[in-house]
């Protein structure tokens, strides 16, 4: 099967859905780039090149460069979605939610409920998350917990190229508003990705690695750290099962509980917030629904309760590490 990057996989998903459905449009800042300039059209193709090439195929009316105006971008997408299009809006960095959150959390997410079931809002908001680029406190956050908390939204956190394509196709076809979180450090990672369109249903965790001693739930980039830790632990004779929920809303509670019932031990590795983040969400769920299966306390591995620092030394210390994960499992395995 062809090897493709996470970036290419996302681009392919967009292309195939735009070919399939003329109602799919893309809008955002520099999603093409070059509008109103003397040089090339498609000069950017998105800040990190994810939408490159689409304007050439679909034209300016479907790949729409906007001013720097996130409330208008997200609001326009929400309004367009409730009136017949399937817009894919781009919020360049999730850190910018602070200037446009209303349009997604109070508007798009709530239309259906407020209007008594009569609205359909098939909107996808693509956005970039994650530390690791030395991009500092306002360009490095992993904020999917803020969206996961919002009833009416679905949240997708692909950890690899294959999932990114299938989940994005699903997101675009979905009739509810979906926020799609792309981890910036993953764009150049590669995977087997079929050329044809395929979709991955929401709410179905991926079993990354089977194991019997410890269940490890990890999200987005952390899946790779978890798998690496699991490989290393396997050599010590500790068998770790790694689960990637792939979507945080809906969350595949069943698969997590089933695994915990097998292993009796749970570690959660997540780059979102230490407080009210996904790790505590999952820990809370398991401690309510599968308590009797637990042999020992649930360990959450998250960044500290601090902003993301700039200096490489500090940022590296901020991001959960493979070593930190292994240490936590050693701790657990004692029980």
């Amino acid at each position, binding site marked *: 099967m062809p090897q493709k990057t996470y970036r290419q996989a996302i681009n392919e998903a967009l292309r195939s859905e735009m070919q399939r459905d003329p*109602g799919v*449009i893309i*809008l955002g800042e520099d999603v093409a780039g070059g509008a109103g300039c003397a040089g090339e059209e498609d000069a950017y193709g998105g800040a990190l090149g994810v939408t490159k090439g689409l304007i050439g195929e679909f034209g300016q*009316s*479907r790949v*729409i460069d*906007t*001013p720097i*105006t996130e*409330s*208008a*971008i*997200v*609001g*326009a*997408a*929400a*309004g*367009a*979605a*409730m*009136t*017949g*299009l399937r*817009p894919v809006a781009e919020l360049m960095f999730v850190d910018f939610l602070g200037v446009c959150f*209303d*349009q997604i959390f*109070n*508007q798009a997410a709530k*239309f*259906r*409920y*407020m*209007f*008594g*079931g*009569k*609205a*359909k809002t098939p909107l996808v908001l693509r956005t970039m998350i994650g530390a690791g680029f030395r991009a500092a406190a306002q360009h490095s956050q992993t904020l999917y917990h803020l969206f996961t908390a919002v*009833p*009416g939204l*679905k949240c997708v956190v692909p950890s690899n190229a294959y999932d990114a394509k299938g989940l994005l196709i699903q997101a675009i076809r*979905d*009739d*509810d508003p979906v926020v799609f979180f792309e981890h910036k450090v993953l764009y150049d990672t590669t995977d087997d990705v079929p050329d044809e369109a395929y979709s991955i249903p*929401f*709410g179905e965790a991926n079993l990354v690695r089977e194991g019997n001693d410890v269940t490890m739930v990890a999200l987005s980039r952390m899946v790779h750290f978890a798998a690496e830790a699991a490989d290393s632990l396997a050599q010590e004779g500790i068998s770790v099962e790694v689960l990637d929920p792939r979507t945080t809303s*809906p969350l595949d509670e069943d698969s997590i509980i089933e695994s915990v019932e097998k292993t009796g031990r749970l570690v959660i590795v997540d780059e979102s917030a230490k407080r009210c983040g996904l790790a505590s969400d999952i820990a809370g769920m398991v401690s309510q629904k599968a308590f009797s299966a637990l042999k020992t306390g649930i360990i959450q591995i998250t960044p500290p309760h601090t902003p993301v620092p700039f200096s490489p030394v500090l940022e590296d210390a901020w991001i959960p590490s493979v070593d930190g994960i292994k240490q936590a499992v050693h701790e657990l395995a004692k029980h």
Partner: protein
Amino acid sequence: MQMSHDVLLQAYQTMRTIREFEERIHIENTTGDIPGFVHLYAGEEAIATGVCMNLNKDDYIASTHRGHGHCIAKGCDVKAMMKEIYGRSTGLCGGKGGSMHIADLEKGMLGANAIVGGAPPLAIGAALSAKTLGDGRVAVAFSGDGASNQGTVFEAINMAVVLSLPVLFVFENNGYGEGTGHDYAVGSGDIAGRCAGFGLPAQKVDGTDFFAVQKAASKAIERARAGGEPSVIECQAVRFFGHFEGDPQLYRSKDEIESLREHSDCLKLFRSAVCADGQVQGNQLDAIDEYVAQLIDEAVSEAQSAPFPDASEVLTDVYKSYL
């Protein structure tokens, strides 16, 4: 353009329906039967009516917290609206929305909106749909004077200009944002003027004058429909009730409302204009008044006896599908 007799009567009926709807809610509200926050549109009827009569059923409007008038002018069923305001299961939104969230997508009414400045970005989205699908529709966003200070509103206006979207932004300048005066809150005091700076035609009209509103709106909507060009209309308006039901209105002078009702009542002004030049007979309007009174009466009593939703419905309608 001269309006036909029928159109005049229809316009009057819309305005009268809004007025009666609001006056009646004001009365009923004192009984405590109407839940939540209610913002009445009485006094501003000429605006919703003068704008929406230029729209087709499948054109779009996006409204505000003060949305009853826009709903009625866009053709929403007044009985279903009343039931919604009473929180009943047969309300327009099944009782889940209430006064601040009435919507009727089949009528192109994209919702009242409890967030000041929430609607304009949505309206440009509807206009973007129209442009992309090439279906010739247009969108209208209503906002208050207070909303004209909210950043989202300017973002929407600018984007409409940049993308040449078929949208009209209507500002209903009733002089107040809650208890804060327009003259204080709006730097320059000139909403149309500040909008014009974004590169689109912006006109000021007397919002108590149905004909003035209709004329300006008709031109703007035609322009949008023909070439996708956005515009702005600022309507000088008057508000007969408080900001919300229950507002003691201490910020207004004692005789302000009385004087407005006397001199600036768009319904009275309409009646004298159309009767003066003999286009319409007073008794035709009286008949409408009677018809409307009856309609609202029924709407209230039907709403009061309509069933509440079942508690289990709290869980439905969150997603189209979820797990």
